[in-house]
């Protein structure tokens, strides 16, 4: 989304400060997804389609309630359904609303080579500006949550915007507005953490000893958080990573090695220049030609 903004804290492929005079006076925002309250109605999916004018292809039923089967350029949020048999032998139907986590330390933004194609606002939202996107897919390589998708139609990368356009004018994201059970709530990150505390206590008092808040520190915390009844095993919920962080490979690829390599290339060129200035050209002399002519003469003369 192209959004005129003066409160950008980070901008992809940019080495100078971003326009950041406006701070988030009211604090950073966060979406809290309380998995224990979710009934899997997909109102959030429908609201996301409606607000963002997205219509995914009509697919086929794969035998589960999960539909479409995966996130796509047209489906920025998706209810992931998992049938889990707990140690007591009971079936638990785990439903998790998947989508961009809006990391404080976004792997997509770190990997992106196109200036301004990915930005992070002061309120914490990580947004793709598709008009600057070149379609390389590095954001997919960088993301610890496997969220961005390249559109087959225009080869640009898309994902949840946390309704940055709505939030910018004081509205809550479309999915929040549509949720009928209060499983989705939106506010400042601090408020959401506080709200989660109460939910976690409630769950623990009702037998979910391992209930907890999913706000992974490995990516600096996220602006989409989960209340999980089984917070000790986040993988149960449709493969939510237990300890997400930007991969060491991506760190090596996009970290300190890049400026070093650019310096290395510049130094190689400079070394060649200085070599020339010091040693000069290695020229074939008259004597070389004469010696060669003598040998030619000997052979053919």
């Amino acid at each position, binding site marked *: 989304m192209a959004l005129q903004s003066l409160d950008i804290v980070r901008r992809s*492929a*940019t*080495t100078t400060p971003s326009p950041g005079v406006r701070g988030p006076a009211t604090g950073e925002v966060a979406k809290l997804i309380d998995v224990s309250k979710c009934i899997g109605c997909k109102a959030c999916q429908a609201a996301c389609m409606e607000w963002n004018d997205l219509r995914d292809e009509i697919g086929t039923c794969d035998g589960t309630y999960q539909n479409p089967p995966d996130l796509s350029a047209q489906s920025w949020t998706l209810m992931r359904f998992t049938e889990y048999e707990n140690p007591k032998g009971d079936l638990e139907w785990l439903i998790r609303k998947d989508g961009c986590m809006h990391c404080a330390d976004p792997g997509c933004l770190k990997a992106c*080579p*196109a*200036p301004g194609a990915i930005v992070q606002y002061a309120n914490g939202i990580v947004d793709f500006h598709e008009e*600057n996107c*070149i*379609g*390389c*897919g*590095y954001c*997919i*390589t960088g993301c610890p949550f*496997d969220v961005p998708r*390249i559109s087959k139609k225009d*080869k640009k990368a898309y994902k949840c915007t946390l309704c940055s356009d709505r939030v910018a004018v004081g509205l809550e994201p479309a999915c929040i507005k549509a949720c009928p059970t209060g499983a989705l709530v939106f506010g400042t990150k601090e408020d959401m953490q506080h709200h989660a505390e109460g939910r976690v206590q409630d769950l623990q008092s009702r037998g979910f000893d391992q209930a907890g808040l999913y706000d992974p520190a490995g990516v600096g915390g996220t602006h989409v958080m989960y209340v999980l009844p089984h917070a000790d095993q986040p993988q149960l919920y449709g493969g939510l990573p237990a300890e997400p962080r930007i*991969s060491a*490979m*991506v760190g*090596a*690829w996009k970290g300190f*090695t*890049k*400026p070093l*390599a*650019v310096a*290395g*290339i510049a130094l*190689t*060129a400079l070394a*060649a220049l200085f*070599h*020339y200035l010091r*040693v000069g*050209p*290695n*020229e*074939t*002399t*008259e004597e*070389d*030609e*004469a*010696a*060669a*002519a003598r*040998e*030619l003469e000997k*052979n*053919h003369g």
Partner: protein
Amino acid sequence: MGDTAQRTVIARYNERERINHWILAIAFVLAALSGLALFHPSLYWMSSLVGGGTWSRILHPFIGLVMTVSFALLVLAVGKHNRMEERDWKWLREMPKATSHDDPRLPEVGRYNGGQKILFKVLLASMALLLLSGIVIWRSYFSAYFPIGVIRLAAVVHALAGFVLVCSIIGHAYAALFWVTGSMGAMTRGFVTPGWAWRHHRAWFRENIRAANPRTRAD
């Protein structure tokens, strides 16, 4: 030009080799520009030389394929002359100590010297790595077939191999264009002077005159 005197020259590269070399050189420059553009933000402006960021992303892998195929043809043409021999190692060892090109400690050089042969091997290795890793990170066609860990590794390998290739070619271009004068003719017209061959590649010069390769040309 103007001098119509008959001059003896020695053939170094034929038409096919020269045309292939320049296809390779052009493909390298375009691939390097579009690749470096995505390598570091400070070099993103280079993408405008191939039509912008999106065109860089679209064209770079195809240009890379042209470069790889062209390099493979070059390997077929000169690979056999680039095997390291004992005299090449000796030449590399003695070179830093040599006072002049005529230093008696330096062994005679064949068609390529030890440095050129090392360069050849470095180019071969980096081209192979660029091709393999490039296929893995070619998002439009191939990335979907590889697990994310392999894609991440390939991204690092691609950047590293590209860095080595660019630095190597800077060295190669410097030697041919500025340092060792008289080399360019070999890749433009296809000939060098007997004095050049005698000075820089004496063993090759002698093989040549024994085989009676020198020709008389009117320049």
